[in-house]
């Protein structure tokens, strides 16, 4: 009798990582607000500290439709065009 594996592995897709900046100084920051409670507040305070410490500027903020949804295409395009560094990943 055989065992039948009921599981699936994630589909592998090629991902090209953006080049890492050599220095944090003067980078343009993109923020991804996932709409969780206080997400925007926490992101803004983090951005303020980065600005003070490394002379960064917030160039774009993308607000997701909900925490369940991905950043939409327009948001991705804006982040890609206007940001050197993107901050995301706010939980409860």
């Amino acid at each position, binding site marked *: *009798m*055989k*065992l039948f594996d*009921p599981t699936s592995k*994630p*589909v592998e897709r090629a991902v090209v990582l953006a080049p890492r900046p050599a220095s944090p100084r003067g980078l343009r920051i993109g923020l991804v607000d996932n709409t969780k409670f206080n997400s925007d507040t926490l992101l803004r305070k983090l951005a303020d500290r980065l600005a003070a410490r490394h002379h960064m500027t917030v160039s774009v903020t993308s607000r997701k*439709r*909900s*925490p369940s949804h991905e950043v939409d295409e327009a948001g991705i395009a804006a982040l890609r065009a206007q940001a050197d560094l993107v901050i995301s990943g706010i939980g*409860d």
Partner: protein
Amino acid sequence: MSEIDEAADPAALIEAYYDAGWTDGLPVVPPSDASIAATLAAAGLQGHEVLGEIPGRNTEVVAEKAAINAVMAGCRPEYMPVVVAAVRSLCDPAFAYHGPASSTGGSAMALVVNGPICKRLGINSGNNLFGQGHRPNATIGRAVRLIMMNTMNTRPGFLDRATLGNPGKYSFCFAEHEDEHPWEPLHASRGLARHESAVTLIASNSLYQIYNQLAATPAPLLLCFADALGNMGSPNLKGFNQTLIVFAGEHADILKAARWSRGDVQQFLMEHTRRRLADFKRAARVPGAVAAADETTWRHVFERPDDILIVCAGGRAGSWSACLPGWGNKWTRAVTTRIDDVATPRGRQA
């Protein structure tokens, strides 16, 4: 795959599925080549077909894997078209799988089945609707949960982060009682034809039963629902999300006798399910101090009447109905998918 000598110990095969981490905690039915093939055939599927995908998770649900899980859950082959429709609902972008599947809220995937397939498969729509005793109810919902765990990586403690979960996460599937219904059945209210079969998926937090034995008219009866739906601990309270209500026999009869339409019921509940802003603030569901105006400022729980999904099902006797509060702040929407019922040619149309 690996070889197990089940002839020496039939339980060894079941234990092997436990050891591999492939079960929901209950024993599974070990699949065979024949049972997998029969399950695929019953849904008119080839093993390699992709039933759906969750792009954000790089996840695809392939028919063969879905069939293996359906057999493991105890499904008969003819249940597979219902399982497939439920999987397609899970993968619909409107359902936004990641939230309801992974949230600390721990929602169950409630499946409401409509149409001719219900009677053919014997899906319970009557007494003990949410309880034990009916194979299709027990195994179709279980198959969907196993598919989530095994093919969509939605495992407790990993991508299922439920704080408490609820018993409906083992299985949650029932049919609507379409005979003597006060209105058109759920799937017809959502744009399908009555003669079609369909599954409606809604991410549901734990259900609670609503009792009222004295009400003889709709208004007092529905006030009980409005009060329950507006309780301060409800996750729904300020998110304008969907809710499923199940009216059982005696309560459905009251609405029918009074000739209230589905829209009348939805409108009444939308208008009466509300709380004062002061209540929200006292319970710290809204930040800030209570101001005088907050005592007379009302907030409604529902934004639109059709955010209240209504089903008639359950036993004929008894003064009970139920609310199944939806998960999330409109981040997910209930999805109705036509069942591609290969046993009836009409199921393939439209």
